[in-house]
């Protein structure tokens, strides 16, 4: 066993040990219902904006407060509070990925990713829509 081998092994062992200790800090993708069971734990939610309920954002009063409601495919629903500016096209989004924690009655959101219907050019439906829009309006 050479010194260099020992050092390499220590490096690898350190890496593995580090990875294992980090493992618990990794987040997970959850449904609204399962997130409610993990109060205070950082999770990723995949949900939809509930369009029947109000989106509250008044940047003149406070540019760092947005609240809205979400539902997911399993029928769960929740209020979301996001202390940041409102992402444009929130209302138009098809799907939301929300990162944050469930806190009592609401989901305290740290980051919002929007999946907008038109975000991806490669989507064939979208291309078709673009063609139709152009050709229908003279």
């Amino acid at each position, binding site marked *: 066993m*050479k*010194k*260099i081998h020992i*050092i*390499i092994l220590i*490096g*690898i062992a350190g*890496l593995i040990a*580090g*990875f294992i200790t*980090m493992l618990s*800090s*990794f*987040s*997970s*993708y*959850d449904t609204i219902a*399962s997130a409610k069971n993990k109060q*205070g734990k*950082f*999770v*990723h939610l995949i949900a939809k904006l509930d369009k029947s309920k109000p989106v509250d954002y008044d*940047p*003149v*009063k*406070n*540019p*760092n407060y947005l609240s809205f409601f979400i539902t997911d495919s399993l029928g769960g629903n929740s209020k979301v*509070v996001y*202390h*940041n*500016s*409102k992402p*444009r*096209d929130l209302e*138009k989004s098809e799907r939301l*990925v929300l*990162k944050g*924690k469930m*806190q009592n009655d609401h989901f*305290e959101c*740290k980051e919002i*990713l929007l*999946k*907008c219907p*038109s*975000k*991806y*050019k*490669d*989507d*064939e439906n*979208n*291309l*078709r829509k*673009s*063609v*139709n829009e*152009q*050709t229908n309006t003279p």
Partner: protein
Amino acid sequence: MQFEGEHLLYGKIGHLLVIIATVCSLLSVISFFAASRKNDITERLSWLVFGRINFVIHSICLFSVFIIVFIICKNHYFEYMYAFKHASKELENKYLLACIWEGQEGSFLLWMMWHAVLGIFIISKTKKKLYQPAGILKASSSPDKNISISSNEWKAPVMTIIGLAQFFLCLMILGVYVKDVRLGNSLFSLTRNEIDAPIFSQPNYLSLIKDGQGLNVLLRNYWMVIHPPILFLGFASTIIPFAFAYAGLQTKKYGEWAKPALPWTLFSAAVLGVGIMMGGKWAYESLSFGGYWAWDPVENASLVPWLILIAGIHTMLIYNSTQRALRASYLFAILSFSFVLYSTFLTRTGILGDASVHSFTEAGIAINIMIGLMVALFSLSMLALFFIRYRKIPAIHSEESIQSREFWMFIGSVIFFLSAIFIIGITSIPVYNKTPLLKDLILQYHGGKMALPEDPEFLYNKVMVIAAFIIGILTAISQYFKYKDTPGKHLRKLIIPTIATILFFIAISITYPFLYDKKGAGFLLAIYMAFFASAYSIIANGYFILDTIKNKFKQAGGSIAHIGFALMIAGMLISSSNKIIISDSKVNGINLKMGIDPITKKQDNPSENLTLLREIPASMGEYNVTYMNDSSGNEKGRKFYKLLFENKKNKKETFVVMPDIYIMKDNNMSSNPDTRSYLTKDIFTYITYALDKNKNSGHTPTDTDTIPKKSIDSVLFESGKSDISENSKISLDNLIKSFNENNKTSITIEGYTDDTGEAEQNLILSKKRVIAVSDYLKSNGDSSLLISTDWYGENHPKYDNNSDANRTLNRRVELTISAIKNMTPSDAYDISEMKIGEKSFYNNGYFILNKVEINPSNDKYKFTSDDKALMADLSFVTKDSLRFNARPLIKADATDIININDTIFSQNLIIQFAGVTENKTVKIGIKEPSNFIDFIAVKSFIFPYINLVWLGLTIMAIGIIISMIRRFGFDNTTSAVILIAASLGIFYMFLLAG
């Protein structure tokens, strides 16, 4: 059916060329492989010549394909899907190249073109004297033949690998059907075949398609024109060390490949390093995530091969000097290209999904399988070959001395390698979630698909900061060791730089300490350690150049690269640890109430956005910032917001930044930051929210009406011209005289044309007119004028274009002049002095002062008894009996009085707590702008010493290039040309441009 107006010939030729390129690449692989297996020299040579011919034809085809795609996009032939998807008529010419490599197929083409260029360099270059292994030389007769045979030793196996890669990449863009499965996506597929829409049953469908989708706005940036080619050259060049490793294994001349492969590896490291940081610079300049590096999967995927290349360079150096570390050199040469392929897999198959902002979307299952196959074939079979031959690869079994250079260098390589493994391990989380067996394990034990933790950047940073520390120390000391063994007294040379570093470190820690305590004392300590190591590396390598290398400039490459690397790390540590968010409400003393984090029990305050009402200064760090106005940009849907920064203390420091918002055709929005750069810091600002004022109508001229106009002037032009007439010059001169007196003047210049000629041409003409006037004002008047410009072409004519007289009046440039000086808020407010319970009137009703609170603590503000803040609670009642509440506030700190105004948005009222009079009445200011209140929300950061990052990168690249030049053995002239060109290019790109 016969369709009208299509240009099908281009596509047919293009597709044919792709097929020829594919066939030729396959033939070249076969011939090069055969050549590498033949022992007979004439036979070998004939195979080689055949392979070379095929490779050259293949390369010519690729370049021709590129030219055809360029023509298709440039001429907007929307019958081709690629042009329809990526080009558009409004796209400026300079972005044409960017639109070609925006798509999957185009970027594959770019990659192949670089392989082709590198391949041609290899088949022609080795003709000259690059490397001559001993052996079979003597058998041949003519001296010319001798040389070519000697270098052929490497040429054939190296080209086998490059040809094979070309073949696979060609398949990706082949677009040929095998039964029902389409093999590859062609660049020349037709829109009508790709999209299923009723319109394509009409023969004249092309005349109905007005425009293509255009280039994604995030990519409309000059970095996007130059960054992908450099990055792809970096990716493409990693194949050469890989191919040399294969050559070593295949020819069983196990050790000799490391020497000729080393300069290519250095080349690859320099280009890839620059390419990665160009991506960083692009992100910094035009994306709004507020930095140059975000540990995004796509960024990581390009960083990992680079880290492994650096590891490989050092093990090859060890091998060339001591015959050690050969097996590690093999491993790193194989893995760097393997990880390039793996990153292709990650970014192009859609597997990253939500995890990355940059990745391509899914391109179809067939392509995904092909990419997967290519990754597996290259990486796995080479690794298998490596392990089969592992025992035969010579290795020295004795132990190296701790006092040898190779010992410390090897440890450094291992650190680089482990860092790479760590980064790719985390980046691959989305892959784990989709790997069959692993997926079930994760679901069972993790309780749901794995996702990155709350602060993913910190996850990387806390590991990499330790790696930076170790690497810093190793790069500082290693060069002071000699290969094999170092006499003890030699190491005494380290004493001077060590002491110098300690003194420097203490001085810096006192005068400019790191303030990043968000992650606790442990991480702060790690930052200090990494900074110490970087400083040590800079000083020790600098001293090494002065003391040991002296004027042997060519040998200084390594030391220079180390200095650059350390400088870059130091710049990263400073600019991110001491970043200040000046739009943060904390910094501005507005204590908005926030939730308490249930885990850390700390006050959570992510309120980094600040709202700026138009024309009303707000306090931001050491600046008062005013949102002046907005103006349209060159492209439709782009809007620039003019923000005036005025330093509170140093009145001379005022500047304007113009971040913009771009609403694309598909209604996506991109917010592009603007940065004020100083030598020691950058002030970085972007818009996080803006009112969508003109959703339907493009620009409405009334937009700018909120500024109290002083005067409007106009300059008329001759038809089709943009020269300023002598008469107009006289009136402009008079104008200049008038505003020299009140020195701060803001001018909005708006250009128009009549309706003769093409609309597109008119837009350009109106722009020219605006620029002519603006240049005239700037060159003849005060250069510090605040000029904003806008042009509309034939839109918004002042008069109907129904007579020549009216057309003359429409060929105009309008100047709106306003003095900013007169716009301090107190002037604009209507002040009422009130006592508690009193009533006062405004235009649309009355308001009552309910109470005044000292240091309020409620849902809106949170002050403690230490503060000096007064809040007025007011009720407004409109004529139609609507009731509103407003709570403006006034706050004093050591230096300044800050007004935090309230607004009743629906009533268009701005309410200010203007002060308290001597007899204890309260002064309430009311402002009722005639137009609705316009505002934006912004984020603004200060990045201190960020230029060190760019300077460090530049120095590192130059160092690596010096090393490369030395090992390629170029003559002095060639060396000087390469070095000067590369240095100027990199320096210009990172430190001067933009």
